[in-house]
């Protein structure tokens, strides 16, 4: 069997099962179906073309997500949404809210509120939360995917979650008033 064909078959076997999660991630990044479809389609084309550069045995899923994310960054929506976030700023200690602990907050937030809050987050916060909590990637995987040190992943994730909590708190309290 020619090498190219073997590669194409391997690629198909590895890549097609990732379609649903990749599409979901793309939709969360782009915010609409058309752009999500374009992103995913382009990702598969690029990945198939560059499959020879993929090192077998390494993390294929992270490789695909990286291609998708880079594709997004160069798209119009991606360029617009990627404001620079100051990751170096030390995390601010959250004020303790004794009457509204996080566990209670989460118990009161419904699915729609969580989705709305996620949508309102800056893309960089949204993507890191998705990579960690939805794709369940390790800090190391996320660091490789984003091309940043692990420390940056940790601080950005911490900041993103804080922003998420604040958005959610506002929604839950706004709804209960």
């Amino acid at each position, binding site marked *: 069997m020619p090498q190219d064909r073997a590669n194409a078959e391997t690629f198909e076997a590895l890549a*097609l099962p990732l379609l649903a999660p990749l599409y979901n991630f793309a*939709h969360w990044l782009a915010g609409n179906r058309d752009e999500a479809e374009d992103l995913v389609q382009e990702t598969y084309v690029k990945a198939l073309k560059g499959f020879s550069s993929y090192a077998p045995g390494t993390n294929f899923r992270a490789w695909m997500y990286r291609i998708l994310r880079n594709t997004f960054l160069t798209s119009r929506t991606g360029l617009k949404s990627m404001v620079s976030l100051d990751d170096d700023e030390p995390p601010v200690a959250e004020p303790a809210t004794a009457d509204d602990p*996080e*566990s209670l907050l*989460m118990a009161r937030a419904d699915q729609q509120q969580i989705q709305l809050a996620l949508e309102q987050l800056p893309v960089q916060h949204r993507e890191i939360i998705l990579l960690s909590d939805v794709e369940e990637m390790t800090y190391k995987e996320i660091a490789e995917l984003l091309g940043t040190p692990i420390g940056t992943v940790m601080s950005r994730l911490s900041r993103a*979650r804080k922003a998420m909590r604040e958005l959610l708190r506002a929604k839950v309290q706004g709804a209960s008033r």
Partner: protein
Amino acid sequence: MSCEWGSKLDLYADAELPESEMAQVEAHLHTCTACAAEALGRLQMKRSIHSAAARAFAPSPEFRVRVAKTVGRQRKSRLYWLPQIAFATAMIAAVVGIGFWARHAQRPDVLAEIADMHVATLASANPVDVISTDRHTVKPWFEGKLPFTFDLPELQNTEFRLIGGRVAYVGQRPSAQLLFGIRKHQISVFILQDSGNLTGLSAGPASVRRLAFNIETWSDNGLRYIVIGDTSAADVRALGNLLGATKH
């Protein structure tokens, strides 16, 4: 919350701490309610975000097909041929099936078909399309309607009289149907090209009784004659002989 462990709760919730530290944090959570509530909140948030966002958007079936084509179109593997092989197999099965059906279903017994048509003719208000007792009127009427010609017998001095004729189809072949009368009975004569493969007919002449009809059939000069009537076999044979006697 100003517990020194607070900074590790994210790492704990994300299972990013080394095993020994995970155990230490867990031990601490048993003694510090503030941290326990905090850790519970983080875990709940992770779980809630996962369930709210993991399947929020699904690719449409059309898009799935498009991507699969993008990935699969550029190669030709064994799997690539599967649809074609399946299609070819289905076509072969269909052709064999049609052949089988054509042999066994599409060729009913010609005599049964003849009997049906004769009964239908008797029941019809307009049994014939050309009504004439004159064979010199009836025979020319078939010109251009049939791919063959035939002779009609002189019926003078016989009990038979010609009623008329029409074009019929026997075994999907054009055929002349002639209607004769004898006393109160009517007899149909079918004349068609004899290709030798009419089901239920032997190649040679035959006298048959089918559904109480008497049938006389023979082949002459490439034409198949079938005489059918509810009169006696002798009457049917006598008409047959008249038709056969007109030849040559």
